[in-house]
């Protein structure tokens, strides 16, 4: 089992790099799954994800060349679908109905930002069950990319509250009998929290988590297992994807954040490096000369940034890779294959 997690800020081509790595893995014989989070439409087309299906296999016929390739599968993290399925699978029909109809459930679903992180870990667990040998995981494009491991931990804390357990037992948790069994101190504390956040909201949240508890406990167990795999350097490597001008800042940031959580940083991919190419003195208009000068300056600046990055991270990150800017946007498996050649 091998897991590669791609982290980085937005707009650096993280999804393309993840997909290209998966393609490369598959061509080397792996049964690989690339798990993307809400890819742009174009890339979805590139990967051949046409339907809203759970996961789908992509044809490697174009690259076979007589060798025995593995398999390439692509899946998109659909929060609502995964969560609904998890609810139905892990609870009685009556329970599932109560959860699915609960107002807080819908609010949670709407705040996708929160749920995506929770579901990424869940979805990885399903993929492991499905027998994939290699997972290529594209994380949410944000500086808070690591919330996908932090959120499950907050979540498992929440469901272990005495309050939530109690609620689950009585169902009508606000009844005197239930609350009376709380210590006086906890009761006072709880009353204050309720005063601050509003009774309706607090009760709805607790009520929801009480119904949701069985599902959530199950989830928490699996999430802990998956997070433990992510910490195992034999299984997982994290790859930081960045672009030349962001490389220094992103590299420092993700090395710190990953290190703090004891996750292994395996590689940094500096994407979209402009090549320094000779431009002949072909007769150009003054305006065009200015434009050409600007491009050469940018290419030079990319090269200097690359040198700096190699110096700064040689000790901390085992593998540093540069990928040149491709002439057009990455579109289609063939383009991903070209990208993969640089990895």
């Amino acid at each position, binding site marked *: 089992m091998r897991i590669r997690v791609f982290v980085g*800020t*937005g*707009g*650096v081509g993280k999804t393309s790099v993840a997909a290209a790595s998966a393609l490369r893995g598959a061509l080397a014989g792996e049964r690989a799954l690339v798990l993307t989070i809400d890819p*742009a439409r*174009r*890339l979805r087309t590139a990967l051949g994800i046409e339907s809203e299906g759970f996961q789908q296999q992509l044809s490697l016929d174009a690259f076979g060349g007589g060798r025995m390739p593995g398999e390439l599968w692509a899946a998109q993290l659909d929060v609502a679908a995964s969560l609904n399925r998890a609810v139905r699978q892990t609870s009685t029909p009556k329970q599932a109905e109560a959860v699915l109809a609960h107002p*807080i459930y819908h609010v*949670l679903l*709407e*705040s*996708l*930002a*929160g749920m995506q992180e929770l579901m990424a870990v869940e979805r990885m667990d399903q993929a492991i069950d499905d027998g994939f040998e290699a997972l290529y995981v594209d994380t949410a*494009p*944000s*500086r808070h990319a690591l919330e996908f491991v932090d959120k499950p931990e*907050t979540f498992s*804390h*929440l469901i272990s*509250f005495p*309050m939530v357990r109690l609620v689950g037992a009585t169902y009508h948790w606000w009844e005197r009998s239930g609350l009376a069994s709380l210590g006086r101190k906890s009761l*006072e*504390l709880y009353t*204050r*929290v*309720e*005063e*601050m*956040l*509003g*009774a*309706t*909201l*607090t009760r709805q*949240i607790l009520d929801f988590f009480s119904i949701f508890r069985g599902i959530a406990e199950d989830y928490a167990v699996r999430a802990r297992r998956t997070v433990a795999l992510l910490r195992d350097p034999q299984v997982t490597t994290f790859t930081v994807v960045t672009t030349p001008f*962001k490389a220094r*800042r992103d590299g420092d*940031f993700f090395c710190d954040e990953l290190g703090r959580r004891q996750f292994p940083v395996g590689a940094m991919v500096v994407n979209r490096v402009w*090549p320094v*190419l*000779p*431009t*002949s003195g*072909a007769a150009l208009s003054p*305006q*065009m000369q*200015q*434009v*050409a000068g*600007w*491009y*050469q*300056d*940018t290419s030079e*600046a990319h090269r200097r940034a690359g040198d700096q990055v190699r110096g700064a991270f040689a000790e901390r990150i085992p593998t540093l890779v540069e990928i040149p*800017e491709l*002439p*057009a*946007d990455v579109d289609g498996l063939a383009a991903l294959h070209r990208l993969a050649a640089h990895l």
Partner: protein
Amino acid sequence: MLPPLRHPLTIFCGKGGVGKTTLAVAHALGYARQGKRALVVTSHPLPELAVSLSLAGLKEKAPQAAASLFVIHIDPRELLQRAVRQHIPSQALAGAVVSSRIYQSLIEVAPGLKEIVFLERLREFAVRQAAPEDAGGYDLVVWDAPATGHFLQTLNVSRHFKLYLSGPFAALGRNVARFFSDPANLALFPVTTLEEMAVEETAELVHKLAELEMRPRAVVCNMTSPALAGTATKGIAAEGILLPAGADDPGLRFILDRLVVERALFERLRSEISVSATAVERRHRAGTDLDLLLELSERMGEMLES
């Protein structure tokens, strides 16, 4: 009725990594250089660090601007804590509440709570405009907004505060909803780079803002080449540039490819949104980050006012 704001709350939003923070700071810096008190509120702690690095030396170079420019990061968790401490007279009890696990976990999962508190603080800054009798006010408040998804979610929360049916935060929700529903209070500038995914996301953002009845003043295309933004090169269209006959020049080939891609994305963006789009060229030659920022602040002043 309150009088209209002299300067609306200025918002730079858009995809991650397109330069929102830099543009927000440069815009505020332009005001600060004229001696106006300008505040940048950022939602994320990391850019603040980067900002303070690029502002190093401002005091020597432009003392007046340094005295009038403020960059702060607001952590909604701290605001919530302050609210709890104000609401509960016993500090020991307030301390126990905010450090309790149930409180901490509830505020993490309570949908929209952190957003409401954040927006309320922003509103307070925006309405408290500089006046002779109020030395703490600002002439300009700029919000360096979080990346698109979280930004839209935050705005949505301001419209659906009714989820908070009780509790002290429901009152905040009403203030926030009123303020953020009035277009006169806001000057929105979605920022994008001319890259496929960024352009796609920006067009979607503009459409979603329209659903919230919010219309951006302009979309800012950041870090373009001079062929798109530069005044000296006005009129250069990529399709009008031809490789000299017989020339096999990889450098020029690369440049022309990039120009075609950039121009096509710019046209595509313009055709998909009914908002004007303006280009900000990436500059190289200036020395330090601060020089770049000062130079950018001059360009932005003219651009966004027009």
